[in-house]
């Protein structure tokens, strides 16, 4: 149901991001979306790929520190205020968003945003009740 995000611990030194990208490319993965959270010393690379389970293993075998995190893929109306509306909804119900980033492709005219929240099920409920579509695991990983 949830979208599986792969998180990779990276040191803040040149070439590390490229190393991950090359490794995934060499193993036939397609990176659907990514974001980097970084500090002056280290960063966390977050990735959405096709076949996350295998990507996890490939990265781990190559010696990276990896974890798998569940995130929501939310369809956001592609117009001004579209994202703000979604965020307001969650905020008003007290659901805290830890981070978010955008998907490259669109889903039927809507933008797709990846959200990390603690209360996954509750967020889906709230969004669904307000007519906002949350995309399924299978669809997102195949886009």
């Amino acid at each position, binding site marked *: 149901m949830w979208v599986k995000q792969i998180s990779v*611990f990276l*040191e803040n030194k040149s070439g*590390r991001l490229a190393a991950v990208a090359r490794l995934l490319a060499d193993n036939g993965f397609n990176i659907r979306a990514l974001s980097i959270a970084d500090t002056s*010393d280290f960063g*966390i690379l977050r990735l959405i790929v096709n076949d996350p389970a295998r990507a996890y293993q490939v990265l*781990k075998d190559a010696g*990276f520190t990896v974890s798998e995190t569940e995130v929501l893929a939310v369809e956001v109306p592609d117009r001004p205020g579209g994202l703000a509306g979604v965020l307001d909804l969650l905020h008003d119900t007290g659901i805290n968003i830890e981070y978010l980033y955008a998907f490259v492709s669109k889903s039927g005219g809507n933008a797709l945003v990846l959200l990390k929240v603690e209360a996954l099920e509750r967020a889906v409920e709230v969004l669904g009740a307000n007519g906002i579509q949350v995309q399924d695991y299978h669809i997102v990983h195949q886009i």
Partner: protein
Amino acid sequence: MYWNREMECMPAEKRQKLQLMRLRELVRRVYENVPHYQRVLREAGLRPGDVKSLDNLAHLPFTAKEDLRRTYPFGLFATPLANTVRVHASSGTTGKPIVVGYTRKDIDTWSEVMARTLMCAGVKDDDIIQIAYGYGLFTGGLGVHYGAEKIGATVVPISVGNTKRQIMLMEDFGTTALACTPSYALHLSEVLEEMGTDRSRIRLRVGVFGAESWSPQMAREIEKKLNVVAVDIFGLSEIIGPGVASECLYNTGLHIFDDHFLPEIIDPATGTQLPPGEEGELVITTLTKEAFPLIRYRTRDIATLHAEPCPCGRTHVRMSKVMGRTDDMLIIRGVNVFPSQIESVLLEIGHAEPHYLLVVDRKSPLDHLEVWVEVSERFFRDEVRHLESLGKTIKREIEGTLGIGVEVKLVEPKTIERSQGKAKRVVDKRDLPGKNKP
């Protein structure tokens, strides 16, 4: 419970007289029988008769591990081979081993100090002791063996390995005491768990563990997992094997059987003797050894000495648990730092197998210590603030332990170079004279 109350509880003054008498006799013996000692004593301008008080010990030359290697195999023996009834050897991974010899009297001395060690740990004649130290050239197995027989315990000379069989016999025989290395004790406890053994059938109550340095945290873990009192015993084959010092049940450090082994603590850089309580390199003189006597042998182990009496009644000088090795010691801003201290902090925080590197640099005018810690999967969460707080916790704990400021850097796994399975722990970028000397 003592094996030899007279020697173990002897008033300090009386023991010092005995030590001086034995030291004078030792110096005379090595001067007459070992060319190496005759040469180095002459070079130091000393004759055997010059030793008039225990304070004169500080004038005697040191014996280093290199001296033992250089004289391989029998060059430092003080008795003819006809009188030598046994040899043991180190399991050195590189080059020639270090060979040590024993006369019949040395074997008796060894049994005596091992008997004291076992009684110190509360092992008695009605105990069944499983000796899971290696038997053979290594001194662990046979050393404990002779002591255990001397006190009349029932000895199971099983040696190391075949853990399932160890556990089966432990159950069937009702073994009450275990002698092995601390790491083997941990391994055994894990196998015991995996096998799902009925713990009520295991009667173990005490473990005498040694031959490796191990942290107090590891001792507590073994005690919990094996349900035993874990007693640290100290020894090294150059001195005699196990039986040089032992913890008693009061947890006050290790009693050094100093009627046989005269200890000192020195500053490893200058060789100066340090007062009790100060941390430095442990140096031992074997007062009574016949075949392989050593004068002021530098053990390379770092410890402190304490002279106050112990509630158990023994008056022997006590040493702390070994804190590290001089080979690894760093002096940063005047403070001694051992990789083992960092290791125990990381162990405490929960790193099961800590991989870390100490990078020392001199950013004028001060030394700067950076601790690199590999982020293992267990500690990785997909949250920046979690990692930041992990870094801060490590920094705070290390600073609390060392008493100096450090920078902690979280690095990717396998960043820290391993060679032959052992990680390199220190990179010293300072340009210090003699910094890498042992």
